[in-house]
């Protein structure tokens, strides 16, 4: 430890400001603002009170965003090794909270995913995802955690499967898929043997038909089958699919303009500020607006992958990889649902969808990434 470093820490309350990824911060902030604009448009028919009222979903979301930013800065100050150090505790707490939500949680739209804490609904799976990423990172960065060995691969599966199964029971098919994607991303970067991966993939394919028959609820099968032919049941399962298709498709190249989307403003879209916020974007801002969003997400994700690139150690790298996969898959699944290429499942669009719990977990994740960046390899070598 050099003297210069010590001086700097004394001078600035916010340490690591010179290595902090401001571009990552900027893109995430832009995504949030983008979301606020869309929430404003989508909620204008249901809310017409003052802009600053706490009942205004835009104001609430903005408040959550400010709190989340604060949490992000705080977490970026914590060495991520503290987090990996306690990863087992965090993981167990995550698993317990997933069990607890099944028992005590609030049911909505046919599944039990939330704790209702009055002003905010907490979704424990958001926390469990981060805990799982931390544990995977710790496991592969420790002795014996070599992903090239089948034994290590199986242990990593044992870490992921309980969490994925518990959210599957809720049921929350989308989040299960996110868990699977996180695991896949982490093991690939951790240097998995391609043969092992193929073996596991084949096993998964073999189990799939049984899952379709036994594990999937009727409504899930229906949600998958309406993708093929949404017009079959236009009022029930196909409703959201058809309405979101019409919304996005009718937006065409430049959209109908903010506050001008008939599908949105006439309330044909259900939950337009949450799961179907992308349909609002597609309808009102069109293809151009969607490309802008994609660009922001791609910049954000590439910055997180950069963090993995420059991470000081394997743990930091795998944390960044896991978080990149988390954000990538959530965004992809959510948008894919809006574009009717993935069954309807309650995954919010990261940074944009209304909801404090999701927003906060995203910024916690970014805080961890910043923590990895601040303690990157180049810095460590100095």
């Amino acid at each position: 430890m050099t003297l210069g470093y010590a001086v700097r820490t004394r001078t600035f309350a916010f340490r690591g400001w010179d290595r902090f990824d401001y571009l990552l911060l900027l893109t995430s902030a832009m995504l949030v603002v983008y979301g606020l604009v869309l929430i404003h448009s989508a909620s204008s028919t249901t809310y017409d009170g003052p802009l600053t009222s706490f009942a205004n979903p835009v104001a609430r979301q903005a408040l959550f965003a400010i709190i989340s930013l604060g949490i992000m800065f705080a977490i970026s100050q914590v060495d991520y090794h503290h987090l990996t150090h306690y990863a087992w505790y965090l993981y167990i707490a995550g698993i317990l909270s997933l069990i607890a939500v099944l028992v005590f949680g609030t049911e909505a739209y046919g599944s039990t995913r939330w704790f209702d804490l009055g002003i905010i609904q907490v979704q424990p799976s958001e926390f469990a995802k981060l805990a799982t990423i931390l544990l995977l990172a710790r496991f592969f960065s420790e002795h014996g955690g070599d992903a090239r060995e089948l034994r290590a691969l199986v242990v990593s599966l044992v870490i992921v499967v309980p969490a994925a199964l518990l959210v599957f029971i809720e049921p929350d098919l989308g989040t299960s898929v996110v868990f699977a994607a996180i695991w896949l991303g982490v093991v690939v970067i951790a240097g998995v043997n391609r043969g092992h991966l193929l073996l596991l993939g084949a096993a998964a394919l073999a189990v799939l038909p049984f899952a379709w028959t036994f594990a999937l609820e009727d409504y899930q099968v229906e949600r998958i089958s309406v993708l093929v032919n949404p017009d079959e049941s236009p009022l029930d399962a196909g409703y959201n699919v058809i309405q979101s298709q019409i919304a996005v498709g009718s937006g065409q190249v430049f959209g109908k303009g903010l506050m001008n989307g008939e599908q949105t403003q006439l309330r044909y879209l259900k939950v337009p500020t949450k799961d179907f916020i992308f349909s609002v974007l597609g309808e009102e801002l069109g293809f151009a607006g969607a490309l802008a969003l994609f660009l922001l997400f791609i910049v954000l994700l590439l910055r997180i992958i950069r963090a993995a690139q420059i991470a000081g150690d394997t743990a930091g790298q795998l944390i960044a990889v896991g978080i990149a996969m988390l954000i990538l898959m959530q965004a992809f699944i959510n948008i894919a649902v809006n574009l009717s290429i993935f069954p309807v499942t309650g995954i919010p669009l990261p940074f944009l969808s209304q909801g404090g719990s999701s927003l906060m977990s995203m910024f916690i994740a970014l805080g961890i990434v910043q923590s990895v960046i601040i303690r990157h390899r180049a810095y460590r070598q100095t």
Partner: protein
Amino acid sequence: MSVFGDELRPSSTPSRMRPHGNLLVLRLAVLVLFGVLVVRLVDMQIVKGDEYARRSRNNHIVATNILPARGLIYARGGEPLVENAGVYAATLIPEFLPDEPDARYRIYVWLEDTLGVPALDSQTRVAAAEKNSRPGQAIVMKSHLSREEALMLEEASTDMPGLSLRIVPGRNYIGGDAFAHVLGYIGPQTAEEARLLRDEGYAFNEPVGKAGIESRYESALRGEIGFSANEQDAYGNLLNVLMTRESTPGNSLRLSIDLDLQQYVAELLEDSLGDANTAAAVVMSPRTGEVYALVSVPTYDNNLFGDLERRQEEYEALATDDKRHPLLNQALTESAPGSTFKLVTAAAALEEGNITPATGLNVTSTVLEFKGENGVIYPLYDWRAHGYINLVDAIAWSSNHYFYMASCGIQNGGKGLGRNTEESAVILGYYARAFGLGQKTGIDLDAGEMSGIIPSPEYKRRVHSGPEFNPEDREWYYADTCFMGIGQQDVTATPLQIARMTAAIANGGRLLTPHVVSEILGPNGAVLRAMQPEYTDVAVDPAHLEVIRRGMRSSVAAGAGAKAAQPGLDIAGKTGTAEFGPEKADGKREQHAWFTGFAPYTDPEVVVTVYFDLGVGGDKAAPVAGQIFRYFEDHVKP
């Protein structure tokens, strides 16, 4: 000092300090996944964008039909015979009902408490509609609400989503039962009608005329449907009107039928029925063909068709009354015309020249014997021994023998109309048709008008062609022509046809098309179209008709039709007593009573035809006709 710095690192020092993963895979994954989304977006927003834009418009723009106000119908004097009245109905639209069972049940209970619709009923019907995936269609829970009920419903429906008041256009017929057959009624389209009417721009819920004037003048009465295009949100609330085309009200009709006369005649027939089951009367102008009254007894309340839900039993009683057939318009229903047909026989014989006005016959016996084709001697009866009579007397006293002579010919009395029996029948048929018999009159009513039958040898062969008939049943005999000459055999005619024939005799040979509508009026009351008399000329010498008219005058003045006479009125007429059905135990058959006549004798202005299904013409029909002439003279006469 550095709490978050180095001292923790040894405990979690990775096995390999240098990360070795290939992050290019991850970068590619990001680009590929977003690439998939971009491809899908291009397909949806750019390739299929127009299609989705169209669907988006259809999604929220709903067209609502604005039904036109149906034209009204007025009697001759301008008295309204019908008014438009909405029928209020309580409907449930399952799609808009609240999801919570409690809120739903509150609506069902309201229906039960306020309108008496059992809550269980509502529940079952809504469940059935939802099961059949028809949640968007309104279920009529109760129709024909009172105004108070409708108001309560309107008020309650504001906070009971799914419950609504529907107003179905309806008609209230206020001219009384006497007009039931003439006016007809309106009703919902049947499935077959709906297919045809849709092409004419009808809305599915638009009622159409089903009978009578309502049906015949449907296109005039209907008006033009309007519509409004409204913007609707996902919950069915109308937000704003994008475009409206108002409906155009239908045109109104003024009838030639006189309100008071029609009601008077209906009551008169009803009161005079006696043993008879049914009766009919036609009062028309021999100058224009305008019908002043067209009455069929028994009648019924045609308002019941607008309220079949509640009056089903009443309707079935009417529809299954085989004796009186109240739903049939007797004035357009055929039956044997009897001696009224002798007027045609007279015209035919005069025209053919086999008799002249001066031709006489001495009827000394009621029985006239003739030798049938099989050599057997048959009797032909007259109703009395008239003594020596000429044509005028024969009409006045309705001599059968004289008209046998005029049609089929009798021994010592000259030949018939033609060279032989069959030809005589064909010639007589030709004149009958010339006077409008055996064909529809073309009156402007959809009321199941019958054409009547004018038999002929060919007709007899055809109707007796079945295997159940003997070959000799198909032969046309001498007696067939004779009986045809007095309006028997298979001859049938409707009271309206007889009135029309009478009018042609009265006006010197114009066969008028009778009509009940005299003017079509625009919504502002202006006359759009006034019906002009339509007629064809009957190819009979007016002088011959003059002789027949004299016979008819003589009938009322001092003949078989004397009971039709009214002081101060110069009435001419002809009675008819037509036998029909099988012989009874006493050898007699049932008889229809007819009287047809016109007045005044010079320059006739009204024709009256009266028919009872049972009775003797001179006794039953003639006095009634006389009273109608009297009423017309005193109250209606233009």
